[in-house]
C-alpha cells in the first residue's frame, strides 16, 4: 500500500464542514477568510467582497456560469495567490458577481489539483502537502 508524508497536520473544529483559513493575495494586498474544502466543486469560488478588498475589479475577469443544484450564478475568473495552512499557490479562482452569494469554496481546479490531501474526518484531522513535495511513496 502507498504511504504518504505530509507537510501540515491540521485539526479542523467546525462540524459545519471543513473550514480552512485562507490568505488571498493580489498584487501587494491580502484578505483573510474561511473557505470550505469541497471536493465536489470544480473551482475555487469566493465572495465578491474578498475581490474588492484586494482591489480586483470583479467584472474585468473572464465570466463563467457556475451551476449549482439550486440553479446557478455568474462568476468571474481572476489570477491570485492562495495561502492555506502555510502553502502558497498561484491559481485562477472565481468571484461571484452577486454580492449576496454567501459562500467561499476551495474546489478542485486551482487548489485541490495542486495539493496532496489526507482526511480523517472521524478525528477532524486534515493532512496537507503541495503536490510537488516529496511523497515518500512506498509500494
Amino acid at each position, binding site marked *: 500500500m502507498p504511504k504518504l508524508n505530509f507537510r501540515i497536520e*491540521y*485539526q479542523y*473544529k*467546525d462540524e*459545519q*464542514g471543513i*473550514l*480552512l*483559513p*485562507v*490568505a488571498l493575495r493580489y*498584487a501587494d494586498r*491580502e*484578505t*483573510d*477568510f*474561511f473557505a*470550505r474544502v*469541497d471536493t*465536489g*466543486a470544480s473551482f475555487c469560488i469566493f*465572495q465578491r*467582497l*474578498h475581490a*474588492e*478588498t484586494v482591489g480586483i475589479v470583479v467584472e474585468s475577469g473572464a465570466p463563467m456560469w*457556475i*451551476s*449549482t*443544484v439550486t440553479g446557478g450564478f455568474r462568476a468571474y475568473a481572476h*489570477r491570485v*495567490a492562495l*495561502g*492555506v*495552512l*502555510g*502553502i*502558497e*499557490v*498561484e491559481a485562477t479562482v472565481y468571484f461571484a458577481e452577486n*454580492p449576496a452569494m*454567501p*459562500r467561499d*469554496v476551495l474546489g478542485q481546479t486551482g487548489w485541490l489539483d*495542486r495539493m496532496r490531501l489526507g482526511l480523517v474526518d472521524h478525528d477532524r484531522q486534515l493532512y496537507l502537502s*503541495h*503536490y*510537488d*513535495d516529496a511523497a515518500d511513496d512506498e509500494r
Partner: protein
Amino acid sequence: MDVTLQPEIERMVLDRVQSGEYSSTSELVNTAVKNLLEDEHAAMPESGKLDLKSLELAKDAPANLEWLHRNRAAFMGEWVALHKGRLIAHGKNGMDVFHAAQSQGINLPLMHRIAPEESASWGGW
C-alpha cells in the same frame, strides 16, 4: 483564435489605433496581452512555497471559529471582522466592516459573513 472584445474596450482600442499609437488592432492587443501575462508572472510567487503568514492565520483559526460558534445567532446576516478570537467590527456592509477594522489598527482582519444557511446542513453545490 476568435476574441470578442467588450464594446467599451473595442472603442478604446480603435481610438488608440486611429491616433497612430499602434499600427493595427492586432499590434495593440498583442502588446497588451503580452504585458499583462508578463506582469502577472512577475507578481506571482513560486508555487507551493512556505507561507508563514497563512500558518499564523491557521494558529488563530480555532479562536476565531470558537467566536463564530458562540456568537453566530447574535450577528446573523452580518459581516464580522475578527482578530485572534476577538470581534473588531461588524455590520451589513462588508467593505465598511473591513475599513472599520483597519481604522482600529487591524490591517488584516479575518472577514466572515454569518449567513442563515450556515446553521443548516450543507448540501454541497
